[in-house]
């Protein structure tokens, strides 16, 4: 507490048990934050409150909102945004970037393998159970060579900084990772509100995501296509991520389609335009596997395209991400990532994995049941932070309930030690003060044919509730602009 003489931080409570991103243990401000700290210090908290509400209404007017469905009416909400940015210095970023690429590539090779020869299972590195009991493993993908050999074109890797100051991966999201549009909106909002601060730092731009994405998607066009026609497919405007879908289509300069805009004829995909049918070659799909094609998967899907999978199997269209990538998104696969990286790339993992206990293994199950109060229990096939139980936050009866659930279907759960996510000063509406809040970082990696791209920024997600460790927006999380510095 000692060194803080800054007006805006005068009431900042620092818990020394937590890793604070901007203060050292003894309370001195970290070097990269020094200038920012001083610049923000020139403002009073009242100034900040004003800027904050301006930023909010700017999000509203830009329509960067998501729908929340209530009992009576649907409400539009903005994704809470914090005006105090997170800074990542070049050396740290290099680790994150290299680590993200390494993981994405390893996951891609893993996917190719498990949908072809399955050598990693034959060699006993991962158990067969990982695919045979995974709901996300698609038998139909067996033997299909996706165009360009890429499955996980877009990966969202969630990393955290632990107490020890090292980065750990919490999750690999390779189904339809979302959030990239917020990275860009956050930057825009911060520039509008506090443009002056950008003069003092050399920060990488984040607006080049769309062009890189399109470039890499076009590199995995189907065979025989000269100039590919790419589209983004969305479940529709009522989807909570619709803003992002439209943003991506707009910035890539491609059509944003719904299932009903497409049809399949002779195993080629077409969209219905005002000038008649137009062939589609690459589909960046933001709908889940099971809804892609009602003739092949869930027959009651009204958002898919009948016959799409046949067109894909015949190699006439690229789907990004490929169907069936969800199997590697499984939290049980996560636990094998160090071995998977070593097996395919012959490298040591650059980013750490959090140690994970498999409830499917009897000895580990026993450990989990005995130490549940110091573990985080996660269902293996849920996204969005749903179904997570944090052992030391549970009441006695809740613990018993969770134990019963694990025992009933052990394959469904994994457990990890409770990681202490680093904290970052975050402006809190209720108290009108800066407080410590836990943060993580979602990075966005795009794989193309023989090239890759990592967005130099990523989405810093903040758990806005005090002490909360779950940062997902569906669980009341917010976000911050994230600066990757070009030099220190």
């Amino acid at each position, binding site marked *: 507490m000692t060194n803080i003489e800054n007006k805006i931080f005068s009431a900042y409570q620092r818990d020394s048990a937590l890793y604070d991103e901007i203060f050292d243990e003894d309370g001195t401000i970290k070097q990269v934050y020094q200038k920012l700290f001083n610049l923000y210090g020139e403002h009073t908290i009242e100034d900040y409150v004003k800027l904050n509400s301006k930023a909010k209404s700017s999000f509203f007017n830009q*329509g960067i909102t998501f729908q929340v469905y209530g009992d009576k009416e649907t409400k539009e909400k903005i994704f809470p945004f914090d005006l105090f940015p997170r800074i990542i210095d070049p050396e740290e970023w290099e680790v994150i970037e290299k680590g993200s690429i390494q993981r994405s590539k390893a996951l891609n090779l893993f996917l190719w393998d498990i949908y072809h020869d399955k050598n990693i299972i034959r060699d006993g590195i991962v158990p067969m159970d990982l695919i045979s009991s995974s709901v996300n493993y698609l038998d139909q993908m067996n033997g299909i060579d996706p165009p360009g050999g890429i499955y996980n074109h877009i990966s969202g890797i969630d990393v955290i900084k632990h107490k020890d100051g090292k980065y750990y991966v919490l999750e690999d999201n390779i189904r339809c990772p979302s959030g990239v549009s917020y990275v860009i909106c956050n930057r825009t909002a911060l520039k509008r509100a506090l443009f002056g601060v950008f003069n003092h730092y050399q920060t990488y731009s984040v607006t080049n995501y769309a062009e890189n994405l399109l470039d890499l998607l076009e590199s995995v066009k189907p065979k025989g296509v000269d100039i590919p026609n790419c589209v983004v497919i969305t479940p529709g405007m009522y989807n909570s991520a619709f803003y992002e879908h439209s943003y991506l289509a707009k910035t890539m300069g491609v059509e944003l389609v719904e299932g009903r805009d497409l049809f399949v004829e002779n195993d080629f995909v077409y969209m219905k335009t005002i000038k008649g049918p137009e062939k589609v070659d690459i589909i960046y799909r933001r709908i889940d596997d099971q809804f892609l094609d009602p003739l092949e998967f869930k027959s009651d899907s009204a958002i898919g395209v009948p016959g799409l999978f046949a067109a894909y199997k015949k190699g006439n269209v690229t789907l990004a991400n490929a169907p069936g990538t969800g199997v590697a998104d499984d939290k049980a696969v996560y636990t094998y990532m160090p071995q998977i990286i070593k097996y395919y790339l012959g490298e040591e993992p650059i980013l750490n994995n959090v140690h994970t206990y498999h409830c499917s293994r009897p000895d580990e199950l026993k450990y989990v049941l005995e130490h549940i109060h110091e573990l985080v229990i996660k269902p293996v096939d849920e996204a969005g932070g749903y179904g997570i139980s944090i052992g030391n936050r549970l009441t006695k009866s809740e613990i018993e309930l969770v134990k019963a659930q694990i025992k009933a279907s052990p394959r469904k759960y994994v457990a990890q030690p409770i990681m202490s996510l680093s904290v970052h000063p975050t402006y809190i509406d209720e108290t009108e003060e800066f407080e410590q809040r836990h943060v993580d970082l979602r990075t966005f990696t795009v794989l193309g044919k023989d090239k890759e791209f990592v967005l130099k920024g990523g989405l810093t997600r903040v758990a806005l509730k005090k002490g909360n460790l779950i940062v997902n927006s569906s669980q009341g999380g917010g976000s911050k602009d994230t600066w990757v510095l070009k030099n220190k």
Partner: protein
Amino acid sequence: MLARVANNLFWMGRYIERSEHIARYLNVNYFSSLDAPNQLSQSRQFVLRSMCFMVGDPELDDDKILLEENVLYKIGVDHNTPYSIINNVKLARENANSARDLISTELYEAINKFYHFILNYDSTVFVKNGLHDFTLNITEMTDILRGKIRGTLLHDPVYAIIMLGINMERATQIIRIINAKYNDALNSQGSYGDKFSKSFEWTTLLKCAESYDMMRRYYKKTPTSVSTLEFLILNPNCPRSIMNSLNQVYRHIKVLDSTTNYNKNSTAFLIGKVRSEIQFKHIEEIECNIQTFIENILQNLSEISLKMENEFFNY
């Protein structure tokens, strides 16, 4: 461009235009009635009935006393009446939402602001003393939207489709307003020697179409039934006239349909035909049977709309 999205753009244009006409109709009728020269035109009931007639929901019971607050609420900000201004703006925005990747950020932000303005407008203030402020804001905001449409979009098929929507709707609304005011002029003639052809309602009609000043400049005389109808229907230089709207529709359909071949089944052919029929009409022909003329025009417009839908928006 996707057929579905084209449909969205078309309707976005229509809903923007429609909300403007309804707002101005409320404003002009209400405020010009306050100092109208005859008693009937001054009557609150007369004005409220005219408003209901214009939005297509006429009050059929002659004896019923309409409450001003109810009527204003219903037409202005009621989420439950399909023709209310708030619903039109909501639909304009929904259509903009699904075509969001095609329109400019500037246009989208303006529509979005417009929507939030109406959504947050206090409805009790509106029905008590906010009518002027509310409707003025709406007409100004739609002007901003038209400015953004013209100034921030590439003049390509996206623009052409929005303009088609705007002009189709304009022709429709103007004819509906003519219909409503013609009806009012018929009803308000009588006791004070106020002849139909010199009715005060013609002035109101011109103001409803924001054409009063233009008309005065052109004819330099007090508006009569003939001069008003001639101006609003046939004058190609009046931006609000039916003639001008159809000329615009024809111009923009040509952007979508660039074929020069003779095709009697195309939308462009039908529009051209309707346009030419009006172009070579004179006002005496129209005036002697205005009711039939209005019905024919509405029928023609809906045929054009249907054909357009089948040719371009079918998905």
